[in-house]
């Protein structure tokens, strides 16, 4: 078991290296570099820079070196010093701006993942055990709707409904009066009152998909002879269903955590822009629009790394729950 985990961790190293290379390419894609942007900025202030000075600037930032050396400079600073470079836009080290935002994104994504499961598992089991009942149809329709409505559109509609009919301001993480207040119970409550919106918005899409999977898996398991045997032994329905078929039907949940996380993080980026949340989304978007590439690169790198770690955890979880995979 330990060996399997070690092997799995080692496997993810090349993936991480690939991701860092892909990110570096994205940083390099826009025409021009840091010095071009810097010169443009100085010219706006009325200063002129000679070609000689520009070349010296490039040399001092190491931008005249071959790409592979530049890549090494960038990644080694991140790995060994946690230094993601400077944000051109904010004139601050990227790492100063990065971590708070990432933490909030991860919190929202994790909460939505939990909510996704909390919705999908019980409803999936219900729909399968009461197939073709009224509620099964209701949940099926809701599930299809959830799959068809993009996250950001749902956020927009919720925002409008909250404003137009409930006089409730959806968006942001705090009401204005608590924005700069010290932590208190009231402030915490205010946070919760705002936090549920993005969490629910993100969870619906995923839950709609998983619900169908859960229902299909359960239907397949419920038809198997061992279920009939369990009933024949005189066990109650609740005992039979939750003890055996549910456990088998849950497998895809663990194996799809790896895909659920990237989807949730993607969803968070765009939902946060709509709802004006202080997570990675708005900052990443601004960085990309302003070609603040070290900032954008830092975000893309860290977000991708977290999904790799999420996949890793889901694989380990899967082997813990399903011994067949370990011994395959």
């Amino acid at each position, binding site marked *: 078991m330990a060996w399997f985990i070690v092997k799995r961790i080692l496997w993810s190293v090349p*993936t991480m290296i690939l991701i860092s290379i892909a990110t570096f390419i994205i940083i390099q894609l826009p025409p021009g570099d840091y010095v071009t942007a810097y010169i443009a900025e100085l010219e706006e202030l009325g200063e002129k820079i000679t070609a000689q000075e520009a070349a010296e600037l490039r040399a001092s930032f190491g931008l005249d070196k071959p790409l592979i050396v530049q890549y090494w400079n960038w990644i080694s600073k991140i790995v060994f010093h946690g230094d993601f470079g400077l944000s051109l836009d904010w004139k601050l080290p990227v790492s100063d701006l990065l971590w708070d935002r990432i933490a909030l994104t991860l919190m929202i994504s994790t909460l939505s993942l939990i909510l996704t499961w909390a919705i999908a598992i019980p409803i999936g089991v219900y729909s399968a055990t009461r197939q073709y009942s009224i509620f099964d149809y209701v949940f099926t329709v809701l599930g299809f709707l959830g799959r068809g409505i993009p996250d950001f559109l749902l956020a927009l509609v919720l925002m409008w409904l909250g404003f137009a009919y409930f006089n409730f301001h959806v*968006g942001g993480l705090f009401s204005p009066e608590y924005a700069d207040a010290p932590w208190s119970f009231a402030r915490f409550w205010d946070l919760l009152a705002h936090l549920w919106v993005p969490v629910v918005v993100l969870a619906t899409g995923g839950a709609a998909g998983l619900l169908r999977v859960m229902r299909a898996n359960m239907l397949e398991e419920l038809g198997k002879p061992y279920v009939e045997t369990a009933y024949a032994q005189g066990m109650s329905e609740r005992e039979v269903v939750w003890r055996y078929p549910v456990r088998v039907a849950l497998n895809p949940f663990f194996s799809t955590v790896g895909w659920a996380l990237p989807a949730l993080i993607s969803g968070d980026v765009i939902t946060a822009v709509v709802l004006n949340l202080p997570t990675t989304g708005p900052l990443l978007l601004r960085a990309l629009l302003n070609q603040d590439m070290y900032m954008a690169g830092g975000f893309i790198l860290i977000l*991708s790394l977290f999904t790799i770690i999420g996949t890793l955890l889901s694989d380990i979880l899967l082997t813990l729950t399903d011994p067949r995979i370990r011994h395959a």
Partner: protein
Amino acid sequence: MSTLSDPQTEDNTAQLTVDTAKPLTLMWWRFKQHRLALWSLYVIGFLYFVAAFAEFLAPYDPFKHSRLHAFVPPQQVHLFHEGEFKGPFVYGLDRERDPETARLTFSEDTDKVYPIKFFHRGDSYKFWGLWETNLHLFGIEGGRRDRIYLLGTDALGRDLLSRIIYGGRVTLSVGLIGVFFSFVIGITLGSVAGLIGGRVDAAIQRLAEFVRSIPTIPLWLGLAAALPVAWDPIFVYLLITVILALIGWTNLARVVRGHFLTIRNQDFVLAAQLSGAKPRRVVTRHMLPSMTSYVIAAITLAIPEMILGETALSFLGLGLRPPVVSWGVLLQDAQNLRSIALAPWMLAPGAAIVTTILAFNFLGDGLRDAADPYQQ
């Protein structure tokens, strides 16, 4: 008894029809049972029809703005005027300026009745860039300033319905072109992986896993941000579809690879090989056709992903940009609470997006179920 046909033989002929039906007929029978999928097919057909004949079906030019008609709410179509049947008509607009907020508000002026005219002569356009004409499906007669806004107008007084119809042309075609690119990548890599197997297969599998593990939106954004703003909109449009395809091919490749693995060892493939067919012929003439239905189902399910991608990118301002009209670009106007509170009808393009995505999802589900008619 002679007038009645023997029930036994009738049963047999029915059974015979089923037994001798061609696979395509069987698929169609099976597909028809999926009522939702059948309806979705009609809906999608309708949407693409509207997109194709956008110039004629849209009542106005989508770019023509009118300062006097900013943020006109959707107009209601009436049938009865003062208890008298008049056919479909709209009332004229009364413009007032709110004394407190200085905002323009519109109300119905029930004195003016404008009947809706079908095959109306309105703004002139070049149909498909070929013929100059000014025929529109509907419009209203009246002064130059009297217009009909079934879905309201935006901040510049442009007709939202016309813009949605024109935007559909862009958004719906992005789905098709994007899927075409990802189909090319997916089917190539998928068949290579499924045919050669071994290390090549493992490498392609890892690549697909890698692409899947990156959060799509940050990656799309990163790639899209690299496109220079000044480029020709059509070129940007093509590049956006390529970007969507670069990330969206994995699922198609997975489907193709899976089917290659299952049919690789089947008799008809072996027979072809034994008859001396070259590998290329075996693949293109025998193996690929046998999985057409599965590939079509997978493609149908991939189109909504592409449409969502385009919409999300344009919505964030990194995809297609105005003056190009797409549903994502249109939703950009509804991005903040202020504009939605002021003009909730700006969310209408969202309804078009949801309808399209749902229809493609249902159609894809139906096709997937019908793809294997011999399975019980």
